[in-house]
């Protein structure tokens, strides 16, 4: 496994590499087939007049998205973003510099939509949308995890993630799709979650976990499914039901609900917080996927919605749900809709409803990976930056030993795990390994300097990615875990139960 891929050597610090043009040009994802494209309303194969159709679609998108129109126009090519993308830092491929990734589209934009590009294509670097361009689009717009790190540093906030999403939507419109993401979007429509877990399997797992918790804690901690009239609807990434270490966090949430005495339910119909509609850039798909949640909130007559640990899912939930399927005026107005599980637990701690035995986590020296979508595309609590302080407050409340990584690699400057944006697929492993290098470099440093042995985070994709990648860098798999895994370890059950 690990030896199939070349793993970069870790240096003491993150270094800007020399340019290695074309070094990642070979690594495109598997294309989607008719089977995945058709049900999503995309052409089943590349349409005959695809060049023309793509340009038309771009024209439509420019009229629908101010971000695209403005970002196509105003980049001054200052280069401030060139060394900010983890994929560039890991690969040296100039097409992975955010500005150059965007240029793949901007050059086409100039050719068809600007005076300069129509008249002097050579002067302004304008190019036709042809076979070669499409190949580069398909390759490099699937080497962007839509992490938005570039947008933090750009003097105009140009967000290459927006451009990647638009590129993917344009490609879908001409029948050129990405298999992994298209497959998953289909699964969520057909079954209700990305993993394709049907209800019987889901309820079986939940039962098993309840038994497990009973055995380990002596408390009857519930993981209720489809329970009408519960106070809270818990929407969490389906990986939380089946993958390690995700499951540990799920048990953490369950213990928090149990201890607070707040009734809740999981939904089998909306058993997925993730929303891959975002990765393929489609507003319609985002909306359709998220609709399952709004429908279930009504059907199950809950008062609140709480979202589990997931990066892009939290972005969609926090930033987009209200626009997509709001207003949520049928829910309890005293609570924000939706609420992050970290906000939920944090509130309970503030109210004194939870007590912790920090020593339970004494084996760990913990550091925190800010998942990009939480860090740069959402908020927790009422103040800007709550997305950084609230999870750290939870860690400090449940652990004695916490240190942060280098300040240039956390908070809004956090480095992506390398597997976000719909790239968590095996054929892109080489990219995932190299893209993780900057993050792992910073992690390795605190491991060496402060004996850190636990990387806490709140994203299902990050967990899956690190689980696979860290061992390749010689870091044990069980270094990775959710914030609520720490909560789960330290929470004191039975004391002060149900204070709120």
């Amino acid at each position, binding site marked *: 496994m690990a030896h199939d891929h070349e793993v970069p050597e870790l240096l003491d610090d993150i270094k800007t590499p020399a340019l290695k043009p074309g070094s990642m040009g070979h690594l495109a994802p598997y294309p989607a087939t008719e089977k995945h494209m058709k049900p999503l309303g995309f052409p089943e194969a590349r349409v005959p007049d695809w060049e023309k159709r793509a340009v038309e679609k771009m024209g439509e998108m420019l009229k629908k998205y101010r971000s695209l129109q403005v970002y196509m126009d105003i980049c001054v090519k200052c280069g401030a973003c060139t060394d900010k993308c983890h994929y560039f830092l890991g690969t040296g491929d100039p097409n992975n510099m955010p500005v150059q990734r965007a240029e793949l589209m901007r050059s086409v934009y100039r050719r068809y939509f600007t005076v300069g590009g129509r008249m002097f294509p050579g002067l302004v670097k304008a190019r036709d949308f042809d076979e070669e361009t499409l190949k580069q689009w398909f390759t490099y717009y699937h080497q962007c995890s839509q992490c938005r790190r570039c947008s933090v540093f750009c*003097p105009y*906030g140009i967000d290459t993630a927006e451009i990647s999403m638009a590129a993917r939507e344009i490609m879908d419109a001409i029948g050129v799709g990405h298999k992994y993401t298209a497959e998953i979007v289909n699964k969520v429509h057909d079954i209700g979650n990305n993993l394709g877990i049907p209800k019987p399997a889901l309820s079986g797992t939940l039962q098993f976990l309840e038994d497990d918790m009973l055995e380990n804690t002596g408390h009857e901690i519930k993981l209720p499914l489809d329970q009408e009239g519960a106070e809270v609807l818990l929407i969490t990434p389906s990986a939380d039901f089946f993958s390690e270490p995700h499951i540990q966090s799920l048990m953490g949430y369950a213990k928090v609900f149990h201890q607070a005495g707040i009734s809740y339910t999981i939904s089998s119909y909306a058993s997925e917080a993730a929303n891959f509609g975002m990765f393929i850039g489609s507003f319609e798909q985002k909306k359709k996927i998220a609709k399952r949640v709004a429908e279930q909130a009504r059907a199950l007559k809950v008062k609140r919605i709480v979202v589990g640990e997931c990066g892009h899912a939290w972005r969609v939930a926090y930033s987009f749900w209200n626009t997509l399927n709001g207003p949520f005026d049928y829910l309890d107005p005293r609570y924000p809709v939706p609420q992050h599980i970290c906000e939920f637990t944090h509130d309970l701690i503030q109210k004194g409803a939870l007590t912790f035995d920090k020593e339970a986590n004494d084996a760990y020296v913990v550091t925190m990976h800010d998942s990009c979508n939480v860090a740069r595309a959402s908020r927790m609590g009422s103040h800007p930056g709550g997305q950084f302080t609230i999870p750290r407050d939870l860690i400090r409340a449940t652990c004695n030993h916490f240190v942060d990584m280098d300040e240039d690699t956390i908070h809004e400057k956090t480095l992506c795990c390398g597997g976000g944006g719909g790239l968590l697929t095996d054929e892109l492993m080489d990219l995932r390994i190299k893209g993780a290098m900057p993050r792992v470099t910073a992690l390795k440093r605190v491991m060496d300097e402060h004996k850190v042995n636990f990387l806490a985070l709140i994203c299902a994709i990050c967990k899956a990615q690190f689980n696979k990648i860290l061992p390749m860098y010689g870091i044990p798999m069980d270094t990775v875990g959710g914030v609520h895994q720490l909560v789960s370890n330290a929470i004191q059950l039975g004391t002060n139960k149900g204070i709120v």
Partner: protein
Amino acid sequence: MLTFLTYAVLVVFVAGFVWKIALYARSPAPLLIPTTPAPVTYIGVKMRLMREVVFFESLFKADKLLWALGYAFHVTMLLVLIRHIRYFFETMPPYFEEYQIIGKLAGFAMVGALTLLMARRILIDRVRHISSIADHLILLLFLGIGGSGLLMDYVLRPDIIAIKRAMTTLWTSPEATLSVTGPGDVLFILHLIMVAVLLLIIPFSKLMHMDGIFFSPSRNQVDNPREKRHINPWNRD
């Protein structure tokens, strides 16, 4: 002729500028996408934009050297432009005399910063890689304008009195014209042509960043999606 050309250039510039602003202002923002942490109030957003425009806040985070050069260039250009006011008015308030020295120093600093920006574009492989001929030409154009300005100030002085007369009268009298009596005057005409070219390309080039920043959704949106429902104009239900 001069009057006609001046108005023609200004019309293209203003019309192009307004057209672009209208285009940006009219294109819809379907979702809230501020880069967070972002202000949670409208006033906060104004402050954020102000910090970007006045201090280049994000660029400062990104690259200190580039920030220093870019900032120096923009500020000195502003100072130099202010100095130019005197060419357009018959009489100037006396304190403007004091300003001359600032304006002159700024002129040197501006050309210096531009030269270093140009060097950076050529020497740093990443920046060279992303540059098109147009990117280099725009810098050269600014250098040409700044350089010719300095030359006129210190080496080949044109007939300032005549120029000032032309500049103050051309708005109303179509007869206004520029006389060429020495190399300095040729230089001035060159200077003027380059400024005209600059004005003409602004609306159609990356120089629109000067107003695009105000329309950048990642910077100009309030982070309040839960508190206030944002409506997508093309998908209202």
